[in-house]
């Protein structure tokens, strides 16, 4: 009993610093965001007025907020689906197929992940340049030089997809490597048996590979979806600044603009609360939807 008590003290002593840091730097600021969302406040003075839920009321009447919400949601869905689809397929190909230069390909795929968002944004801004960009030059090979080049970052109808392209390019390599690590643990005998029974590669992918790395997919999916909210903000700031005419505004860029540019700090925090609740709901939904029986091998 005394040993257990001593162990408990030791564990508490080891864990306490982490808990204190966690509370000070995560829990308290999060609670503070909730508290500040009930004030009308410019951010730099002590002149705060308690307004209750008024900031939320205004938020739900704002077209700009709905546009930011729509853009965020579109990016989350689009970027997640495409990134995961490509990462899984590429990981499977590089793990199972006997491709020449596999190691080189792995490195090439992983490179975007080590580049900063600013560098990637600069690369993609150059690729998307309407006059001298690689993308329009490539498309012109098929459609002929056109007098009206596609405005990848200037046309409100497509600019959000242009941002998605950069985000996908940045993320694929990292998740591909993650899945390759998981796939390496799958016993080769399972695939050999499937081969003997005449199962195609695609069939094996869906019936062996995916189910056996599902726990990994599930964990990374939740993490990726949540981090996309943050990444989309960084890409928007670096590539479009929310423009043209607010068409690429996402949750956090709208929050940032309101809190720091429009002197509406309380309103900005209300957006932060919505982002929190949205992330919470999204994580819960993903958790529920992706729940499967855990397979062991």
């Amino acid at each position, binding site marked *: 009993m005394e040993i257990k008590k001593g162990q408990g003290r030791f564990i508490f002593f080891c864990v306490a610093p982490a808990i204190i840091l966690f509370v000070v730097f995560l829990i308290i600021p999060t609670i503070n965001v909730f508290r500040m969302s009930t004030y009308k406040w410019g951010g730099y003075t002590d002149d705060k007025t308690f307004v209750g839920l008024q900031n939320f009321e205004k938020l739900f009447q704002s077209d700009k907020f709905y546009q930011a919400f729509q853009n965020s949601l579109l990016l989350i869905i689009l970027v997640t689906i495409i990134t995961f689809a490509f990462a899984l397929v590429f990981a499977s190909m590089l793990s199972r197929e006997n491709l020449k230069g596999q190691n080189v390909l792995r490195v090439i795929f992983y490179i975007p992940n080590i580049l900063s968002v600013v560098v990637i944004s600069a690369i993609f801004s150059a690729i998307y340049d309407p006059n001298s960009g690689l993308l329009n030059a490539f498309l012109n090979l098929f459609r002929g030089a056109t007098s009206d080049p596609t405005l990848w970052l200037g046309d409100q109808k497509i600019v959000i997809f242009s941002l998605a392209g950069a985000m996908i390019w940045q993320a694929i390599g990292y998740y591909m490597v993650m899945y390759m690590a998981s796939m390496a643990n799958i016993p080769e005998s399972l695939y050999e048996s499937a081969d003997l029974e005449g199962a195609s590669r695609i069939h094996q992918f869906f019936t062996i590979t995916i189910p056996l790395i599902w726990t990994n997919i599930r964990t990374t999916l939740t993490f990726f979806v949540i981090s996309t909210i943050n990444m989309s903000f960084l890409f928007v700031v670096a590539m479009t600044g929310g423009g043209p*005419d607010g068409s690429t505004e996402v949750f956090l860029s709208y929050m940032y603009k309101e809190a720091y540019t429009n002197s509406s700090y309380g309103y900005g925090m209300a957006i932060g609360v919505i982002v929190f609740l949205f992330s919470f709901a999204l994580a819960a939904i993903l958790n529920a939807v992706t729940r499967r029986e855990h397979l062991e091998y």
Partner: protein
Amino acid sequence: MRKVLSLALTAALSLSLAACGGNTESNSSSTSPDATNTSKNSNSTAETRTLKLAALETAYGSDVWKEIISGFEKANPGVKVESTIDKSLEDVIGPGMKSGDFPDVIHLAVGQPKGLTETFIKDNNLTDLTDVLSMTVPGESVTVKDKLIPGFTDTTITNPYGDGKTFLMPMFYSPTGLFYNADLLEKKGWAVPTTWDEMWELGDKAKADGIALFSYPTTGYFDSFFYALLNEVGGPDFFTKATHYTEGIWQTPEATQAFDIINKLASYTEKTVPANGNKDNFTKNQQLILDNKAIFMPNGTWVVGEMGQAPRAEGFKWGFTALPAVKAGGDRYSYTFFEQIWVPAKAKNADLAKQFIAYLYSDEAAGIFAKVGAVQPINDMAGKLEGDNKLFYSIYDGGAKAAMGAFATTDPVEGVSISDTVFGTVDSLVTKAKTQAQWVEAITKASDQLRGALK
């Protein structure tokens, strides 16, 4: 319960990631080569007083401030100036101010990306600088007011609360208008348009030659353009009514004329402009003028230095004109852009900050600034200029009228930004994502919301 807790923590993490996102930008900016220049000796002693200066590093560079500081310290023994001069000043000083560490004096104009100055104005967080006007300029026998060109301290920018008090002092000024390649027009035999009708005729001729009539760096540059245009279509009274959100003002024939002109100009704008109209690529839109791909762009005199190293068409020569008149013989306006310097209400050394500001209008300081092309609104200053600056600053001698002021200050109205609504929409007019009617409707709605919040 454990599951709910873990989900909540995941969501909280996303919120903290958001905070990190904001910080990323400020961190990166603070590591710029010319970032914070902080004096080594920052301790105040009984003999030494320390003045904290924060100044935005603009096209004029940061060295000029070092020279000014040296001059001020020399003239004021026992005063030490700690300076923070940075291209991303708002990011650098913002976090400190949130924790109560305010610079004593800040050189940062309204209209910056983060709107820090506007935030201080909206929060009534500025020190009244009216008494600086009656201070004697150090080392001289005249007052600050006597040295300043009349009108600069009577604007809605310097006197944001309409109570006759000056809270922001004018610093460097620059006439704004339309910049173009004078050599191109000469070679083509095209005259610089004096009316908007002539402008459209030129636009058609240029189009036939594969040249766009118009470009703009970002939609933010439409502020000075729009203010000058409002003066042209309705005179100063109309401008004042419009910038004070007078009910029904946007449905008047004068406003409609201004909207028509901008909408028509959008159709003459180089199509690729909205794609580069952001803080990282805006120089590509300016480059269109240097490459003879577009004729006019709204800008200020700083553009010459900003594009100083850029390649250009053979024979390129800067030209500069006021906005064309709405009818032959009508008034032509050039908006006077000026930067401001101000003192936060919580500055610890407001008295010293006022002395510093007064020193900035001395002949000594004006001479230092003028060396880098930073021209202050001081009497007779324009007469001392040479080269391109002489051409630019003589625009008012050629008959153009000066317009000053901006949209009136209001209390913060959540989700409403008049500059985004009025100017930001120009991109959508160019790409035809929005119609003129939608634009006017949005401006009217924003104006209605801001009217009740006027300071």
